[in-house]
């Protein structure tokens, strides 16, 4: 079973999110693998204009391991929108009808519109609103609108063949509406009437029923942003400062809600710069602090990041990438801040850029980021993107003790020099100098963004400039030697095709690999980079050497990562000649569909 469905409706009016979550939580509890991709608008209410603004949730459910929300097409489209006129399709139906696979199903509320007929799909219209209106004549309109969704959920479950899910749905709804109370009762009641309603009608249930398979292992179902927030707390983060921005706000919200309970503090600052500067101040004081933002906010933090590189006070900044440039498309995904993350600062600084690929890696990246920021005393930038950060997916249960593998606590270090001053920027082979923090006796030093001598006093003497600059940049080499993680290779030793990706395209590449191998019998190796900078691409040699075609798949218009690979290829024995790297790019706001990559590979192959 591998089912894809879309729940669509007017944003903030039809209960798209709560309906979708009731469904997917039920599937998750039943043991299914679930991926959710949220497609929403950057307005609040979709219902005020002449043409309603619609949101849709793409949901993929499977009993096998899946890696992403898959292609744009769906088996079932569930339209929660009421529509306005009898003979006019609801906007979300018009928008998304073409996404229904041939032979798929359209499920909609026929109280105000319809019938909607088409030879391409099975159309299931339920007068859901009329039914709840009749059942609860006293209930308020706004409540009826939402209760109605439970009828559609019931019908959908029947169509999915998800017939043993009632107990699960009850427990999910209890969580959602509260264990007692009127709302839960009514929702459960109409859910059941949805189930029986379809039972009396001549609709065929979906061909591959969803069968609950209680999994042996404990699993989680959560968004990338939540995984990262949880992990930050688990790794001893004590200060979060942020500023609201889509799609990073959920991290701010999570921290505001939870960090106090763990002894830390979360503050909303007056702007993005203040939030970054506060992280720098706290890091200078020895704390594990961090800040999350998205493109426009990240641009504003660049000066602070440069300071962090110069003053050698490590700091952790998350950039949940969204479609740029400028304001771009705030609620759409992209991977177009790689160049900005690597090169975006005046002057030259050492820095580390990490791009985790899936929810599990989102969880794993945080303790490592704190550790690297502390060890290397330079900014650590984490690049994620909207699709995985805001999307929900199933994952193995997190191992909380994973964080303990990393040494991210502050400890007093060796004192260098005489008297009260400490040679905080003492030259060393590794480039790393022993840190002191305010409060330590006889370890006074000066920190700042100006070029400085070993104590941090400002200097422009060429000899100091060169010594300290070289020392700073040398840390990058030390990182490559001691902590750089080679890209992860998925595949056999020899392959026809290699797909190179970074960060959040991981799942899409693995899905593509599976499809090409199973359906087309083409062996595919996937090379996935998490450590983006400093870069040592040569480590991918073995995997790439045999591939006849190498594609770099990434979410931007100019092939940013391919450029980085080309830049570094010659110096590091990268086995693919720069000319043979073909880019597969996407920047239409959506995560690329696996079928697009499959077609590109086949086209080039053929």
């Amino acid at each position, binding site marked *: 079973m591998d089912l894809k469905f879309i729940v669509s409706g007017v944003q903030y009016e039809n209960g798209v999110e709560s309906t979708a979550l009731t469904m997917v939580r039920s599937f998750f509890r039943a043991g299914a693998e679930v991926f959710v991709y949220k497609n929403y608008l950057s307005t609040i209410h979709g219902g005020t204009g002449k043409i309603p603004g619609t949101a849709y949730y793409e949901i993929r459910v499977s009993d096998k391991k899946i890696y992403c929300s898959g292609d744009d097409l769906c088996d079932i489209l569930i339209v929660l929108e009421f529509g306005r006129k009898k003979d006019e399709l609801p906007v979300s139906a018009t928008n998304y009808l073409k996404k229904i696979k041939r032979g798929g199903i359209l499920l909609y509320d026929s109280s105000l519109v319809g019938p909607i007929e088409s030879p391409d799909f099975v159309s299931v219209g339920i007068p859901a609103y009329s039914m709840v209106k009749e059942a609860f004549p006293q209930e308020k309109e706004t409540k009826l609108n939402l209760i109605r969704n439970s009828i559609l959920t019931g019908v959908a479950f029947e169509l999915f063949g998800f017939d043993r899910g009632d107990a699960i749905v009850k427990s999910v709804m209890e969580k959602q509406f509260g264990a007692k109370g009127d709302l839960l009762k009514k929702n459960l009641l109409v859910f059941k009437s949805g189930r029986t309603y379809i039972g009396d009608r001549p609709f065929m249930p979906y061909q591959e029923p969803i069968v609950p398979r209680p999994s042996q292992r404990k699993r989680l179902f959560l968004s990338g942003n939540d995984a990262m927030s949880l992990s930050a*707390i688990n790794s001893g983060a*004590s200060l979060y400062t942020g500023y609201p921005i889509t799609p990073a706000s959920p991290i701010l919200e999570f921290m505001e809600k939870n960090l106090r309970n763990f002894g830390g503090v979360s503050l909303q600052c*007056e702007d993005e710069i203040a939030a970054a500067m*506060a992280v720098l101040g706290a890091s200078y004081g020895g704390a594990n602090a961090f800040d999350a933002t998205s493109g426009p906010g990240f641009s504003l933090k660049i000066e602070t990041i440069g*300071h962090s590189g110069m003053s050698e006070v490590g700091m952790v900044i998350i950039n949940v990438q969204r479609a740029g440039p400028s304001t771009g498309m705030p609620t759409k995904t992209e991977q177009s801040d790689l160049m900005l993350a690597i090169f975006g600062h005046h002057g030259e600084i050492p820095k580390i850029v990490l791009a985790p690929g899936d929810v599990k890696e989102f969880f794993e990246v945080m303790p490592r980021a704190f550790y690297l920021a502390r060890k290397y005393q330079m900014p650590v930038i984490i690049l994620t993107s909207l699709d995985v950060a805001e999307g929900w997916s199933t994952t193995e249960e997190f191992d909380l003790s994973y964080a303990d593998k990393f040494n991210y606590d502050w400890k007093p270090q060796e004192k260098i020099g005489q008297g009260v001053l400490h040679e905080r920027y003492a030259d060393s082979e590794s480039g790393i100098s022993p840190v002191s923090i305010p*409060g330590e006796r006889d370890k*006074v*030093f000066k920190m700042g963004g100006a070029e400085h001598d070993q104590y941090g006093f*400002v200097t422009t003497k060429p000899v100091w400039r060169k010594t300290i600059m070289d020392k700073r940049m040398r840390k990058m080499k030390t990182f490559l030697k001691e902590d750089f993680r080679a890209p992860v290779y998925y595949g056999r030793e020899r392959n026809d095709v290699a797909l190179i990706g970074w960060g959040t395209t991981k799942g899409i590449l693995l899905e593509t690999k599976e499809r090409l191998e199973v359906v087309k019998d083409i062996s595919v190796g996937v090379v996935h980079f998490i450590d983006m900078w400093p870069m040592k691409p040569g480590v991918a040699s073995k995997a790439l050497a045999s591939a006849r075609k190498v594609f770099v798949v990434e979410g931007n218009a100019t092939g940013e990562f391919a450029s980085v690979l080309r830049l570094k290829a010659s110096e590091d024995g990268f086995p693919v000649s720069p000319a043979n790297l073909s880019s597969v790019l996407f920047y239409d706001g959506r995560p690329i569909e696996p079928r697009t990559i499959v077609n590109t590979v086949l086209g080039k192959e053929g």
Partner: protein
Amino acid sequence: MDKAAFQKLFQENTKDPQWCPGCGDFTELNVLIRALAELASEDREIHKNVNDFEEMGISGLEAKICKSCPEKHFYPRYEPHTVVTESGIGCAGQMFAYINTYGAKATHGRALPFSLGLKLARPDLTVIPQGGDGDAWAIGAGHFANFAGFNLDITYLVTNNEVYGLTKGQMSPTSPVWLKTGVNPTGPIREPMNPIAVAVSSGWTFVARLVNVGKLTNGFNTAEFSVDILKKAIKHPGSSLVIFETECPTYNKVKTKEWLKERTVPISDVEPNYNPALAIDALKLSLVPEEEKIPIGIYYQVRRSTLHEKLGIEKPLINLKPDREKIKKLLERYS
């Protein structure tokens, strides 16, 4: 250690100031060093025979929590290794190199947000952000107005010479309309802002204005007065703002030491029954044109909960060990 010994200590291991001869920044630096030296020696004296301290439990940091004083505090708190002088960019922003404390220099205009993170994570430190009028009220204006509401326990020193010095004579937010300089011969096109009025109305809980020009003609000693007020500002639990009215002998040919001397007058001489707890009186006083009078002293002082008090933070936010059982509880939401 006595006052003199501390004063000497605060001047050790520093660089020679790179300011112009007669720069007003010297006047602030002298006041700061004297105030810290007095606070440090007084604090030692008070705690000479005190043994009732609670350890912070962070290795390397020796400050302890004093259990004998009525107000909870860390000790030592005013000594070179427990003070952070921190600044933005500009002539005034060089001060961190001329005083023997931990020193930090943020980017231009960002001294306050830097101290927000630092002090929040490190309540054991005495944090003194500092800068000039351009740093504080032009590029840093957004922070100046927003930061105050947190009432974080820091003391922000702003030297106000009403002109950009380091970049050679451009207009600042407080430049009076009659100020003409070499690079701006017609003077500023906009009215100057009133930082005291902004401060009082945006939540600073201690606002003082000082001038250090030695003795006035009537014998009033502005240096000693400034040291006294600055000590009060540093001791004040909450966000303290201390504005030093200073001269820029190179680029502001009007606001000279003599000009300041003629106009400086203690608030008590202007308003004998002045009550600094009343914001409305502070606002009124802030409207006195500087060409006429420069009233010095505490304009505004109220005691409100500090950020640390509101959050209940009593120790540094370092090496936090999160309760894993609680995290497991959080995870239940996702299973």
